[in-house]
């Protein structure tokens, strides 16, 4: 899975798949270590996604946001 396609739900689904594989006891040592590493990366991603929606409600009005984006666009231009 490339990071561009990664979403919270796909990450959680993949972690659960990894745990099922590890629980089966069929994975060899090399595969186990690779799966654990991949799982840890995904868990970090999920935790970061949850942190992003836990830091406090950020309420914006559409017209303010549009004005801000237009200003940023002008400055960049």
């Amino acid at each position: 899975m490339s990071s561009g396609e990664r979403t919270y739900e796909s990450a959680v689904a993949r972690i659960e798949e990894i745990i099922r594989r590890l629980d089966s006891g069929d994975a060899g040592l090399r595969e186990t270590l690779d799966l654990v590493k991949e799982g840890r990366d995904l868990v970090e991603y999920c935790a970061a996604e949850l942190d992003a929606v836990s830091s406090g409600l950020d309420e914006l009005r559409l017209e303010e946001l549009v004005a801000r984006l237009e200003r940023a666009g002008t400055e960049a231009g």
Partner: protein
Amino acid sequence: MSARPKPISGEGIPDSDLPGPYPVGSYAERLRNRLREFARVQLVGEVWGFRPGRARVYFELRDARGALPCSMWQSDFEALGVKLTDGLRIVAGGGCDYYPGSSTSSPSFSFAVTELRIAGEGDLLVQLERLRRKLAADGLFEPQKLLHRPLLPRTIGVVTGERGKARDDVLAGLERRGWAGRLVWAFAPVQDRHAAPAIAAALRELAAIPEVEVAIVARGGGSLADLFAFCDEALCRTVALLRVPVIASVGHHTDRTLIDDVAAVSCSTPTHAAETAVGVDCRAARAHVATLTRRLHGQGRRAIVERARTLTHLSRAPGQHVARHRRHLHQLLRELRASAKRGGDQGRSLASVHMLVLRRSAARAAGADRVRRRAELERLALALAAHDPDRTLARGYALVEDDAGDPVTSAAAARKAEDVALRFRDGRVRARVTE
């Protein structure tokens, strides 16, 4: 009908042609009964001065030629789920009624309404159905349903009225999910003729912001006429072709506007719409991720520890193998010795039995043959004594022996041995062969 009341005698107006006087309460009661005999009908007109009372709601029904006070039981009115505003055209079904009053309360006339609907709603429904079929035929109900809806969006856009209750309901739904990300409010009128274009413009602008992952369109309940802005064809076409999924919550669950059909999801309340926009309970999700992390770490650790244990076991295996064989051999040896001992004992015990049998046999045979056997024995003893070397030596012979004590029986052997011993009856003498 009650019987005509009796006039009160002696209190009438002198010279009057009119009957009576009658007690007013009796006349009021007759009036009520007469009014109730009027045919029950449907009236159409505009609502004015709507006000709720304790048990009934009151309003006037007006048109250009006249007006009628109306009332309706509060429970009947609430069951309709409609809101009456000044100027709203309605159809009211019912009949005339009169409250006769009493010495302490005023009388009142009203048209007692038992059925009510918003006028022109039937036309609206026909119009709506025609538009619904047209949008369906154009395939506009599908595109939104095919969009990916993120389970955990970081940014949500909301189109709603700035002062409506829907705004608070959306916030309550998000709070219930434990979600506290970025919320972009796009306030727009949600009722009048400006509503549909304003809502469409707000949705287009929200969709133009890359961070916005999902949009909610929310409005509380109202009459179908109030909600008609959400059946606007241009608005519905905008929603259908938007890049972000739209979650609609317009009116109560009994109302179904066209935006409900074209949106990705249609919800019964703004709170439900907010909960649908965030597909996970963030608090539960955090706990779940923590559990997944623990399981993952546990599995990683277990995989390594178990393999290390296996390796340790394997490294000890050859030594253990040898030790096991050694123990096995010792065991076999012990068993062999024990077996040998058992065999010897058994053999000895068998020999004793044989000896006993022989002795008994000998004793049995010892009878008649005893004398013959003794004579034979003595003969053999004499023959044996004749061959005894000591007897020969006693007669003066000597025996030549080598160093080892073996007899030297030839001259060649004596020459070869050189040193020999001569054994006489009474002892040995060493001698040297000099030849």
